[in-house]
């Protein structure tokens, strides 16, 4: 009858046994070798550490190797690969440090047969091995703690940005200007075109339903966000008519990608808030994809007066992507166009 041991426990057991074996091997081996070659580890340590060049080399190499390994294999991802590479680096650094400490001429005796003076080399190897092991292990622990702190901070900043974004979303939900303008348009449509008025009310209701349904979501599917952005644009179109144009070209293959809710709508809203809109000089908004980014581009015809909250929604959006997903929102501005590129995320 076999008992299935979970993978993580097997890995932990293996590492515990390895740590145990290394410790027993080193200390018991050291005792035997100390008796055989008659040396004291403390004296060997003093001799090695008194050589400042060797000490600096060992410390810098050990710390450097851990930082380099961390760039390629972050903690928890490929533990055995990382530990194997650390072990290999430890051996190489130990051998190099030994060569730096030991006088090469004196370790070979010039007799009929060239023999290695092991009684000089072995203690140095053991001393360097222990020193490098301690430095590598301490650096590993220290680096991990530092990265954990950074990660915790990034998560807190992300939460703060998310809370701020949600607060602004809630504000927009109850945004009196948006509601006021929508009701004014509705008032006009009710008298002139009841069918259009009915469609307008349904789209307005759908907008608020989308906002309420996705209040707590970190990400939504792009196809849902596109429908919402289109619906929002349709409401704005009723108000601005020929002064506002939008072209959306997004391939179906991107529809299952994920985006922060109301990200597209925010950019469309920003475009209408900060630019002149008239039938003589229409505001043209283009929405399209570019590799793994969704691009919202509008021609620049800025209003003379800007609202005091200028840039806050966009800043929050950028902050959320950076802190929570580690991705940047790209903003490009020239005399003619204002372009914002939002990263598209995969479901996982």
């Amino acid at each position: 009858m076999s008992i299935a041991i979970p993978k993580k426990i097997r890995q932990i057991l293996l590492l515990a046994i390895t740590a145990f074996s290394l410790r027993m091997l080193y200390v018991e081996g050291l005792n035997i070798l100390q008796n055989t070659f008659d040396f004291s580890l403390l004296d060997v340590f003093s001799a090695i550490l008194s050589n400042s060049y060797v000490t600096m080399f060992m410390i810098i190499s050990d710390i450097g190797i851990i930082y380099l390994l961390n760039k390629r294999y972050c903690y928890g991802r490929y533990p055995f690969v990382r530990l194997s590479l650390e072990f290999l680096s430890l051996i190489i650094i130990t051998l190099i440090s030994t060569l730096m400490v030991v006088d090469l001429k004196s370790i070979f005796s010039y007799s009929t047969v060239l023999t290695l003076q092991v009684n000089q080399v072995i203690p140095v190897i053991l001393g360097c091995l222990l020193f490098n092991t301690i430095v590598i292990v301490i650096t590993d622990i220290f680096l991990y703690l530092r990265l954990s702190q950074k990660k915790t901070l990034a998560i807190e900043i992300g939460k703060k940005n998310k809370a701020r974004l949600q607060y602004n979303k809630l504000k927009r939900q109850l945004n009196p200007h948006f509601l006021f303008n929508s009701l004014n348009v509705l008032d006009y449509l009710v008298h002139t075109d009841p069918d259009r008025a009915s469609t307008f009310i349904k789209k307005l209701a759908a907008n608020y339903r989308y906002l309420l349904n996705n209040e707590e979501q970190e990400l939504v599917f792009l196809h849902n966000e596109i429908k919402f952005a289109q619906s929002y644009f349709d409401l704005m179109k009723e108000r601005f008519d020929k002064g506002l144009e939008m072209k959306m070209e997004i391939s179906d293959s991107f529809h299952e990608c994920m985006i922060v809710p109301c990200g597209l709508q925010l950019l469309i809203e920003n475009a209408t808030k900060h630019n002149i809109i008239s039938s003589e000089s229409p505001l043209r908004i283009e929405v399209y994809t570019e590799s793994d980014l969704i691009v919202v581009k509008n021609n620049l015809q800025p209003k003379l007066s800007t609202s005091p909250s200028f840039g806050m929604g966009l800043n929050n959006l950028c902050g959320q992507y950076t802190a929570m997903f580690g991705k940047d929102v790209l903003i490009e501005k020239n005399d003619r166009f204002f372009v914002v590129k939002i990263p598209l995320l995969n479901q996982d």
Partner: protein
Amino acid sequence: MGERTKNKYIVKILIHSFAVFHAVSSYVLQSLGQQDAILLTALTIGMIVLIATHFDFPLEVTFALALLNSFAGFYLGTAGAVLLQDYISLSPMCSNVITTFMTTEILGWMTYLIAQYKTRKE
């Protein structure tokens, strides 16, 4: 009970239990004239691995902590026993038992402090 208090309670039980177990093992094995290094090393590594796993340390850091503490435990224990024998004139068995207990407590609480530093929010 808050998360922090619960964690401290669990760690307290773990460390004190292992410290007592270390001391008892050291006493029993020495009474039988046997070497205690193997069992004590295994117990130290076991304690550190349990604490590290409880605080969700990744495998590499758990290994690093286990290795560091096993060496630190050996050298602290050995040096501590010698000090006790020289300065307080205790018997070798007594000094080994006391040093084993204290070393386990020190290593356990140091590991807990490292874990606390990790979980502390900025």
